[in-house]
């Protein structure tokens, strides 16, 4: 482009120089001509002076030798002026013709002067003097004629020269005008050309740079030539490509980073060394705190302000070590934008850039849920401990009750009907024993030691069946609603225990709404994936949800963690036992389900949402045969029964009862002894009644050893623990007969008689 510009400028310069030079030459030439014309006029003046001098001398010729004669000096002076005039002319005229004419003129002047001199000096002869005068006059006339002729010719030349000069002036003007016009047009054309050559690439480059400035990437300039603009465009394209590559790398890196931090739930930020500016703040801050990233950037103090007042001192203590090069981790609570309280794990470390402290990098993790789970775990462990305690108590208590009930039953048989008073006392004792049995039963339910009758059934159908019963339980000022889901699946549960759960929850809901309200029972089918299942410590899969909601006063936060504890109650002393929710908790846990409680502020009600695993297929199975249905059969027998029971009281009571009903008994106080006794009486023993949990050798091991000796022996296991314990001992899986403590005396005899009467083959299967 420089060559083009220089070339263009050179072309304009050359054209202008040629035109201006020509015009200058013509003006200069014309000026010279004008100078010549002026000189010619000056010479013309000389000629005129010459003519005047000649004419003067000629005039003086007639006055010589008269009284009016002019002084000779005057004549000679005039005559001398003629030579001066010619000399001046010769100074200017250099052409041969001019010089020749002037020389001729000079000769004529010489002749004239000589004739003059002759006339002036001649004397003494008038005729000769007159002749000399005539000669002089004639010479003067010749000179005058010649001078006038030359003046005329000179006039013509002046006129001609003037015309030529004027013509040349006009030519010069025309050339100058044409030069100026052509120079202007050429300059204009060059300017337009250069403008296009410069403006086009410049515009394209400008547009491209604007696009780049706007953030466009990969912008390329199509303009290409061999000028500097072409180089600029090529370099721009290289730069743009480099920018694009760099941007793509940066974008890729930034995308990776963005993918990382956008999906990160942890709140990451980098605060500067003065704690005045957030150099980086991840968007997850909004998810964690409710405050947007902009709000934190506008007010970095917000980081401190959201700290829970109770944890502020801990936070301030931590911030006191802001500039220390160490990694710290603390846990504190924050108040979110919507007023919620969250636990965060705050981990931070100092950042040094070029060995200069540049603030701290912080990672905040929401640990609210884990904190809650931790609490729940603690609660669960506590509940488990309570369950174990309650179960253990109930087990031992059941043993006692078994003995008490057994002997009371025997005693009842011994008391004559007329002894009404004793019979009444005995009934009171039996009632109390029955109540104690219920109590231990409830404790066993809570501790999940209750023996349950699991069956697949439709929860919706069952709820509809008991709906009317439930309506009678609630008061008239309470509106009971039942919403059953459409996509129901069967649950595998104990109907009776589910009934108890629903009854307990409705009872609590009713008590929570003394002024009346709404009570909703709703079912739904929900799925829990691996993550969610782990969270609630359940197996992943589908669950039927049973929600019982009220519009009552809700549960105070401080009570929430205690509601499932046995004997915890907020009711008046005689309104509740404190076992209702404990039983609910125990039953649901025993069914491999879980409970979520949603309670809001006081007056906004509570929802208990129970989750029960679905059975997998929607078909009901025949329920187990109820033992009560065998009550009509004979209780008497003569067979020998081996009683293996570590509890001596129970062992003796059972021996007493069985012998009372005609049976022969062999007793052993543990499994080892039971095995030995069986070996001794293997031909007589038709049935073994065996406790499950015993010292030295438990019931199942003893059974297995006995089975090894005789596969036809019938065994009835007896335990104060729930069926899951038996399952863990392998008894349930083996299809063995089982009866729970405290064993009702009548039921035990029916069971024994039923087993003895069953086909031996059944027992061997």
């Amino acid at each position, binding site marked *: 482009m420089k060559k083009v510009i220089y070339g263009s400028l050179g072309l304009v310069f050359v054209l202008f120089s040629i035109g201006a030079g020509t015009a200058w030459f013509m003006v200069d030439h014309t000026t010279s001509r004008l100078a010549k014309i002026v000189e010619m006029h000056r010479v013309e003046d000389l000629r005129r002076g010459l003519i005047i001098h000649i004419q003067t001398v000629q005039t003086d010729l007639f006055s010589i030798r008269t009284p009016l004669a002019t002084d*000779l*000096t005057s004549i*000679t002076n005039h*005559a*001398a002026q003629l030579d001066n005039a010619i000399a001046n002319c010769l100074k200017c005229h250099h052409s041969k013709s001019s010089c020749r004419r002037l020389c001729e003129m000079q000769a004529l002047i010489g002749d004239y*002067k*000589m004739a*003059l*001199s*002759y006339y*002036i*000096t*001649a*004397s*003494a*002869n008038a005729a*000769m*003097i007159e*002749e000399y005068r005539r000669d002089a006059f004639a010479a003067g006339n010749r000179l005058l004629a010649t001078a006038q002729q030359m003046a005329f010719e000179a006039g013509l030349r002046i006129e001609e020269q003037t015309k030529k000069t004027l013509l040349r002036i006009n030519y010069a003007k025309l050339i100058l005008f044409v030069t100026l016009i052509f120079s202007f047009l050429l300059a204009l054309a060059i300017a337009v050309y250069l403008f296009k050559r410069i403006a086009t690439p410049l515009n394209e480059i400008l547009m491209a740079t604007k696009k780049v400035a706007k953030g466009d990437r990969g912008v390329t300039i199509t303009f290409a030539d061999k000028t500097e603009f072409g180089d600029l465009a090529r370099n721009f394209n290289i730069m743009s490509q480099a920018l694009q590559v760099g941007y793509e790398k940066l974008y890729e890196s930034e995308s990776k980073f963005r993918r990382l931090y956008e999906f990160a739930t942890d709140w990451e930020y980098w605060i500067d060394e003065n704690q005045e500016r957030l150099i980086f703040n991840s968007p997850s801050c909004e998810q964690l705190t409710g405050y947007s990233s902009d709000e934190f950037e506008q007010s970095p103090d917000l980081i401190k302000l959201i700290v829970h007042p109770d944890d502020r001192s801990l936070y301030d203590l931590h911030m006191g070590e802001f500039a220390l090069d160490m990694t710290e981790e603390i846990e504190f609570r924050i108040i979110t934008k919507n007023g919620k309280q969250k636990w965060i794990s705050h981990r931070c470390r100092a950042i040094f850039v070029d060995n200069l402290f540049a603030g701290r990098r912080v990672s905040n993790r929401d640990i609210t849920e884990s904190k809650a789970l931790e609490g729940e775990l603690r609660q669960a462990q506590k509940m488990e401990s309570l369950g174990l305690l309650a179960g253990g108590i109930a087990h031992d208590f059941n043993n006692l009750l078994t003995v008490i009930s057994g002997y009371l039953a025997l005693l009842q048989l011994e008391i004559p009907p007329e002894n009404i008073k004793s019979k009444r006392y005995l009934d009171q004792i039996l009632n109390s024993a029955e109540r104690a049995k219920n109590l231990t039963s409830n404790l066993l339910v809570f501790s999940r030691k209750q023996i349950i009758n699991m069956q697949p059934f439709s929860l919706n159908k069952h709820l509809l069946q008991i709906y009317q019963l439930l309506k009678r339980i609630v008061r008239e000022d309470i509106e009971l609603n039942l919403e059953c889901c459409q996509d129901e699946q069967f649950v595998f549960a104990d109907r009776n225990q589910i009934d108890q759960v629903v009854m307990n929850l409705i009872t609590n809901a009713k008590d929570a709404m003394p002024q009346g309200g709404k009570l909703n029972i709703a079912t739904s089918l929900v799925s829990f994936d691996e993550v969610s299942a782990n969270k609630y410590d359940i197996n992943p899969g589908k669950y039927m949800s049973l929600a019982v909601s009220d519009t009552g006063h809700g549960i105070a936060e401080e009570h929430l963690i205690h509601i499932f504890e046995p004997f915890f109650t907020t009711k008046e002393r005689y309104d509740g036992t404190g076992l209702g929710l404990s039983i609910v908790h125990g039953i649901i846990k025993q069914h491999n389900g879980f409970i979520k409680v949603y309670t809001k502020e006081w007056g906004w009600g509570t929802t208990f949402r129970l989750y029960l695993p679905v059975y997998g297929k929607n078909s009901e199975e025949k329920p187990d045969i109820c033992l009560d249905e065998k009550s009509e059969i004979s209780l008497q027998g003569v067979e020998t029964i081996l009683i293996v029971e570590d509890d001596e009281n129970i062992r003796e009571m059972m021996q007493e009862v069985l012998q009372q009903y005609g049976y022969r008994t062999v007793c052993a106080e543990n499994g080892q002894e039971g095995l030995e006794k069986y070996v001794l009486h293997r031909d007589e023993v038709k049935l073994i009644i065996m406790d499950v949990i015993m010292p030295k050798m438990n019931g199942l091991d003893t059974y297995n050893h006995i089975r090894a000796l005789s596969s036809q022996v019938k065994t009835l296991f007896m335990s104060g623990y729930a069926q899951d314990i038996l399952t863990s001992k392998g008894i349930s899986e083996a299809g063995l007969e089982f009866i729970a403590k405290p064993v009702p005396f009548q039921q035990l005899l029916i069971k024994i008689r039923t087993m003895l009467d069953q086909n031996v083959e059944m027992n061997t299967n």
Partner: protein
Amino acid sequence: MSHEGEDMKKAIILSLCLSLLLSLAAGAQELKIGLIPEQNVFAQQERYRIIGDYIEKQTGIKVHLLILPRYGNILENFKSADMDGAFLGSFTGALAAQKMGIEFLARPVNLNGNSTYCGYIFARKGSKIKDVRDMKQKRIVFVDRATTAGYVFPLAYFKQHGISDIDAYFLANYFAGSHDAAIQAVLDGKADVGCAKDTVYNLMADRNPAIKAKLRIIAVSPMVPSNGLGVRKELSVEIKQKLSETLVGMHKNPAGRKALQDFRALRFITTGNNDYEPVLKIAKQAGIDVLTYRYSNK
């Protein structure tokens, strides 16, 4: 006023008067030099302008040259025109010396080394005039009654050849006024016989070869002193000495030599009134009494 003050005043007035006189004296440093029409008056004036300019440059004395239409007028002009001096011809010089006491200072040495000249009597070769006898009833042209070569010598020559009455012997005669005019008149046929000094004749012959080709010299006069500078005797000795020394010393410096070359002379030499004795002798032969001679042309 004290006597000292009066004395001072007198001294100042005296100084002023003296300065005035000196300035007047300095203003008088101008010489009016006459020129006789030896040749064409214009040429004569141009030729002597060279000498005048040289004197001015060398002495600081302004020289005003005055060309005269007649030889004889020179004597009257010494009085009427207040001339201080003149380059006089030999006869006019003799006249001036005799009548006015003019003192001669210097005269030039011609290019041929002579400081004298002679007079020629000549005629056209085609006129068949070969001697004085052939001149009878011919037209004769003289230069001036106050010239040696142009009148006195021919008069003496004619007398020597028995011709006393010029008017009677010649058909016509007149005075051309200058030597070149006389030569040109014969050459042009205005006269049959002419007389002029050799220096002018030779000068014209050098310029115009036709002169030697067409004219024949019939008689030659004795040598007489060339035209010298004579000044009035009242002129200060200092100026006379300056003029004399300037002219005589011209050839000793480049400017002078250049001026001499243009003047067509080798140098100037001193001259005195005695040098004009040959002229007086010729005049005597011509029957002219210098003191009473009426030198004006008719």
